[in-house]
């Protein structure tokens, strides 16, 4: 009897917490998304799909979807492209390569708030590092974070700076799994470096690329900390990414119904992306084993 119970006892603590803080909240959000509540009133009337209708009719949601998509579409290829090139250089095991790898990897494990604060200074108008550097070339001050056309680029830059070390490390692992003989064969054939990179390296790290592509897209849809610290979604909504909008609706305007409706939409979107990921990866990953 006890023997039969053993596995359940082992999984119980984890399962209880997963149920309490991951699965039950999904249903709670769904329930709240059909209600009208602001934390203050004692009752929360059922309003049907009204929150969804209002959300889908609002300028803010579409702006936010657009900004988030833009962020993903611009930042992900940039990150992956740069990471692959750098990884191809850093794949060799020498002391200086290890040091450089360490330096590049460091930001990805460092506090995002710290990085956001440091880069708020770097890009600040009057005393920032970037404008000071531009100044030495005789260029004028740029309002990086106050200009709606630039702020998103700044966030993309900061996010890339922070995350690229992770991508590089993953790529290096992927590259190291490529058999040396392939390169040796290519060298015998007199392949040029660029040619080898395009014909051998790129296709063979495809599985890694897919993996990184999907996780970084999903990550892009969940960016919040740098937005909250650096721009609050501004200027004029130019960096109002989805999770920031969720936070603003839920914990600044306290429109709990509409906030929950947005959470549900975000959930559907991301689970959709994740399913797409498993499909793609399931189909395209042949090389890995």
């Amino acid at each position, binding site marked *: 009897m006890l023997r039969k119970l053993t596995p359940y006892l082992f999984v119980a603590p984890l399962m209880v917490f997963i149920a309490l803080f991951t699965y039950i909240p999904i249903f709670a959000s769904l329930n709240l998304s059909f209600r*009208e509540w*602001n*934390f*203050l*009133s004692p009752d929360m009337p059922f309003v049907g799909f009204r929150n969804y209708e209002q959300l889908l009719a609002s*300028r803010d949601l579409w702006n936010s979807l657009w900004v988030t998509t833009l962020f993903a579409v611009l930042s992900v290829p940039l990150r992956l492209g740069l990471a692959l090139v750098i990884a191809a250089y850093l794949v060799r095991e020498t002391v200086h390569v290890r040091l450089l790898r360490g330096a590049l990897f460091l930001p990805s494990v460092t506090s995002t708030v710290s990085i956001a604060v440091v880069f708020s200074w770097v890009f600040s*108008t*009057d005393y920032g590092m970037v404008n000071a550097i531009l100044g030495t070339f005789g260029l004028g001050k740029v*309002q990086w*974070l*106050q*200009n*709606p056309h630039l702020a998103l680029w700044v966030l993309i830059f900061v996010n890339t700076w922070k995350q690229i070390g992770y991508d590089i490390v993953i790529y290096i692992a992927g590259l190291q799994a490529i058999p040396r003989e392939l390169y040796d064969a290519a060298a015998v054939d007199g392949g040029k470096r660029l040619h080898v990179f395009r014909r051998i390296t790129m296709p063979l790290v495809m599985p890694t690329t897919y993996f990184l592509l999907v996780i970084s897209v999903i990550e892009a849809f969940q960016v919040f900390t740098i937005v909250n610290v650096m*721009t*609050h*979604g*501004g*200027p*004029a*909504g*130019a960096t109002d990414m989805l999770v920031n909008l969720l936070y603003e609706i839920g*914990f*600044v*305007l*306290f429109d709990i119904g509409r906030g929950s409706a947005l959470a549900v939409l975000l959930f559907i979107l991301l689970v959709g992306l994740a399913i797409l990921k498993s499909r793609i990866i399931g189909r395209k990953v042949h090389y890995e084993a």
Partner: protein
Amino acid sequence: MSQKLQTTIAASMIALLASMGVAEAATTVKFWHSFNKSNGEALDKVIAGFEAANPDIDIEAEYVGNYNDIIAKLQAAIPARRAPDAVILEVTRYGLFANNNLLTDLTPYFDADPLKDDLYDYAREVGVIDGKNYVVPFNSSTPVLYFNKDIFARAGLSADTPLKTFDEITAAAKTISEKLGSEGVSGIAAPGQFARWGLVMANDSEMVDPKTGEILLDKPNTIEAYQWMASLVKDDKVSSPDGVTDEDNGRDAFLAKKVGIMMNSTGNYVGAKKALGDNLAVRPMPCNKACSVPIGGAGIGIMSTSEKDVQDAAYKFISYAASPEANATWFAGTGYLPINKKSAALPVAKEALATQPGIDVAIESLPVAHGRARTTVVTWMRTTEYKMWEAMALGQRNVEETMKDFAAQTRAEEKRVSN
């Protein structure tokens, strides 16, 4: 020997009992407020004065952030049952809490308090909704126009330059930006939300009708005022966008002598005086189409969720904070308006009036000062206004179209919160 021992024991017993007695009588009032820096120091003095006079009450004060932060944190605190006992609430945004029965009606306290007759009408009025008194004013203010005389002189402007109309202000700001732009000095700080409201009133309009609650965001004069404000940033470029995305930035730049003109609450007077010294000049707000300024600032409310004895203690504090002594200290330490008729006669206030030129500008504009709407939707409107203003001032959206959209959204929201 044994007698001595007995006496000692008896004495310590008495001391112990006495200390327990005190411990039991002490009431702690959790108080959230919005004052830091020099205003925070002035508040500390007021609290210290109260605690000295009421040793059985302990005020546990916490600086929460600006008015927006307080509103957000208070709203989040309700389901978590972690609201404070007393809280500073901005005078247009407590309706949300009052109308959800979260604030105690202070009318019974107030009616029994001699303080009632000492408060100026303008100050008392802002705490009332539908005849019920929810907050007692603490830091009342109006916006004023500050400028830096040194910057004016360097730009070749006399200290008497007229700054009555929008055009006159634009002209002065342009001169400063042209002459001193290369030194990193800009003409005028982008107006913060309180000043924006004031400028709408100076253009003979309102955001929300204070009597009927009608939303006036799309009235031609309101739109015109916003067009002018936005033009300072996007067309004339005499205001830095830094002050648009974070309005405190505009004030900080003025204090750092990087900006010539700033329209802001009179509550910034003492801080500005410390930073600028004799170069600080103060004028009334412009009268573009009308001379009318909003009464701003905040009062202290008591949460209905607190225990009765804590509420009583909190009211004692509120009453003390509005007393002539406390109010005079506060006025002299910050520049906020005197709310008590007797404060101005006290030495500390007299000295401030005599030695701090300009601290009285706000007092003199009181005849044209008006209370504003405080309906439930105002909280939402003010939170949303920031985003709208950014879009207009940074040239992302057409002003007229944005204000019409904003008005429509606010009306929809009002309908939502009222049913």
